[in-house]
C-alpha cells in the first residue's frame, strides 16, 4: 500500500519518528502488530524492513518510532514530508489482553522496544482493563538518548520508571534491576519488548516469580506474511523437543514461557 509521509522527525541523533497516512492499516491495527516498510524502490536494500506500529489515529495516520540501525533505516531517515512509501500491514499477532486485570501490569521496554508498548497501554486504558495508575512502564537503555516516548506514557497517566546503563537518566543499571524488586513485592503480568538478551532475562525473572509474561520478539524477515519461513524462533512443542514458529505470523508476541531461548 502506497502511503504519503506526513512527517519524519529526528528525535535525537539515533532515533526518528515517521508519520504516514495509511487509513487501512490504522483501521485494523492491534497493539503489538507491525508493518513491513519498503525503504526505497531500488534493489539495495532489497527487502522490506519490519517496524512496530507505535501509534495510530482514527484519521488514518500511523506512526513508527525507529532507530538508525543500518542501511535501510538510514535511507528511511532521509524521507521528506510528501514522499511516498510502500507499507504492508498490519501484520502478525499482537499482545493478548487479559480481560480481568485486577493486578497492576508491568510494561518493560529496552530502548526502541518501547514502540509497541505505548499502544498496549492505550488499549488497556481505553478498554478499561486497567486504570492508568495500575500500569507501570519500566524503560531501560544504554544512555539517556535511548529512553523514548516517556512523555506519551506520562500523558496517559502511566507511571514511568527509568534506568540507564551509564546512569545518565534515572537509576543506573539494567531494566531487570527495576523489575526484580517489583515482582518480589507483587508478582504482576509483564509485557516486554527489547533486545533478545533483555527479553530472556525478563522471561527468567517472570518464571522465577511465576507471573505471566508476553514478549515481542525480533527476527530477520523476508516476507513478513508467513510465506518464506525465514523468521522462525524455537518454541516448546507438545509431542517433540521443540518446534519452529514464525515470528511474523505466530508472533511477534509470544508467551515467554513457550520460547526456547
Amino acid at each position, binding site marked *: 500500500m502506497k502511503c504519503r509521509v506526513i512527517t519524519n522527525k529526528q528525535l535525537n541523533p539515533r532515533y526518528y519518528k515517521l508519520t504516514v497516512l495509511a487509513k487501512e492499516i490504522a483501521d485494523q491495527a492491534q497493539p503489538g502488530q507491525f508493518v513491513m516498510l519498503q525503504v526505497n524502490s531500488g534493489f539495495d536494500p532489497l527487502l522490506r524492513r519490519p517496524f512496530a506500529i507505535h501509534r495510530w489515529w482514527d484519521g488514518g495516520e500511523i506512526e513508527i518510532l525507529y532507530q538508525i540501525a543500518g542501511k535501510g533505516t538510514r535511507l528511511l531517515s532521509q524521507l521528506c514530508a510528501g514522499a511516498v512509501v510502500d507499507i504492508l500491514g498490519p501484520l502478525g499477532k499482537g499482545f493478548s489482553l487479559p480481560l480481568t486485570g485486577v493486578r497492576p501490569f508491568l510494561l518493560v521496554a529496552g530502548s526502541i522496544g518501547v514502540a509497541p508498548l505505548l499502544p498496549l497501554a492505550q488499549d488497556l486504558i481505553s478498554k478499561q482493563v486497567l486504570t492508568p495508575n495500575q500500569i507501570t512502564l519500566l524503560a531501560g537503555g544504554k544512555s539517556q538518548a535511548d529512553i523514548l516516548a516517556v512523555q506519551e506514557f506520562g500523558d496517559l497517566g502511566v507511571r514511568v520508571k527509568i534506568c540507564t546503563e551509564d546512569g545518565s537518566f534515572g537509576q543506573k543499571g539494567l531494566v531487570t534491576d527495576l523489575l526484580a524488586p517489583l515482582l518480589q513485592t507483587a508478582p504482576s503480568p509483564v509485557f516486554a519488548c527489547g533486545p533478545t538478551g533483555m527479553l530472556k532475562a525478563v522471561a527468567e525473572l517472570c518464571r522465577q516469580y511465576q507471573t505471566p509474561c508476553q514478549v515481542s520478539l525480533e527476527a*530477520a524477515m523476508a516476507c513478513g506474511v508467513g510465506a*518464506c519461513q525465514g*523468521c522462525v524462533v524455537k518454541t516448546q512443542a507438545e509431542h517433540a523437543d521443540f518446534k519452529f514458529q514464525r515470528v511474523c505470523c505466530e508472533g511477534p508476541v509470544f508467551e515467554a514461557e513457550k520460547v526456547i531461548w
Partner: protein
Amino acid sequence: MPPQLNVNIAGIKLKNPVLAASGTFGYGEEYSRWLDLNQLGGIVVKGLSLNPHQGNPPPRIVETPAGMLNAIGLENVGLKVFLEEKLPFLTRFDTAVIINIWGKEVADYVTIAKELDSVREIAGLELNVSCPNIKKGGISFGTNPDLLMELVQAVRSQLTRLPLIVKLSPNVTDIVAIAIAAEKSGADALSLINTLIGMAIDVKTRRPRLANITGGLSGPAIHPIAVRMVWQVAQAVKLPIIGLGGIMNSSDALEFIIAGARAVAVGTANFITPQTSIEILNGLRQYLVEQKIEDVNELVGSLAV
C-alpha cells in the same frame, strides 16, 4: 483483440505464463490477503516431503546486495497435512497447482510422487533436485548426470497422469549436460534456476551470518546467470522450460521468454511486492500489444542473434 496468453507446459494448461515459485509463496493462503490468486497462471507450492520436516535453525535468511541468502532447510508440513489442510484452500482458485517435491533418497521421491499422482486437483510435479542424496554421501542429485537420471527415471516410471518438471540446480559446471540427462531420462519439462549457493560473514564476530553457514542466493543479483542458463538449455533440449531467477518486473520476465522459456516463475520478488506477478502480467500484455504479437507463444525463444 487482447493478446493470447495461454501456454502449455507438457500438458499443464496455464491460462497465462506467470507462476509463483516454490518456497516463496508458501501454500498460497499466506498471500491470498494481498492479491487475487485467480489471476496467477499457477502456484508452485513450498517443497513437500513425505514426512513433516523442521528445517534449519535460525538465522535462516540474510540480505545481500540486490539479493538474499536463505537456508530454510526445506521446512514443510509433510504430505498428509498438505493434502488435508493446505490443498483444499488452493483448489478453490482457478489456477494450476504444481507440487514441488524433495527427498533424501530416491525412494522418498518415488513414494511421494506415487501418492500425488492420484490427486486430481494437482496439475503437475516439480522435482527439486538441489537437495543432498544421503545414500550418495550427500552429493546433490542435481549436480551429477548419473544420479539425476536414476532419480528422474525412478519417479517417471511411477507417474501415470502427472507431468514431471525437473527443476535444475545452477550449482554445476555444465547445466546443458544436466538438462540433457533430465530429458533423456523422461522429464516432461524443465524449470531453472534454483538458488546459487552463497555465503555471508559478519566480520565483527567472524561468524557466518546463517546458522547453516551457506545458503541459496536469490533475487535480482542472479537474474543474468539464470537468463544465460535458460538460453543455453533452450538451445540443447526440446522440453518446455519454466524460467526463473531474479524476476522483479515484466522486462525481467520477457528476457526469459525471449531466451526460450515458455513460462516464468516469480520468487523473491513476492516478498517485496506481493502483487509482482500481476504487475508482470500487465506489463507482458502491454508489451505484446505494443509489439503487435498476438500470441505469447510466438515470443518464446525469439532471441535475435
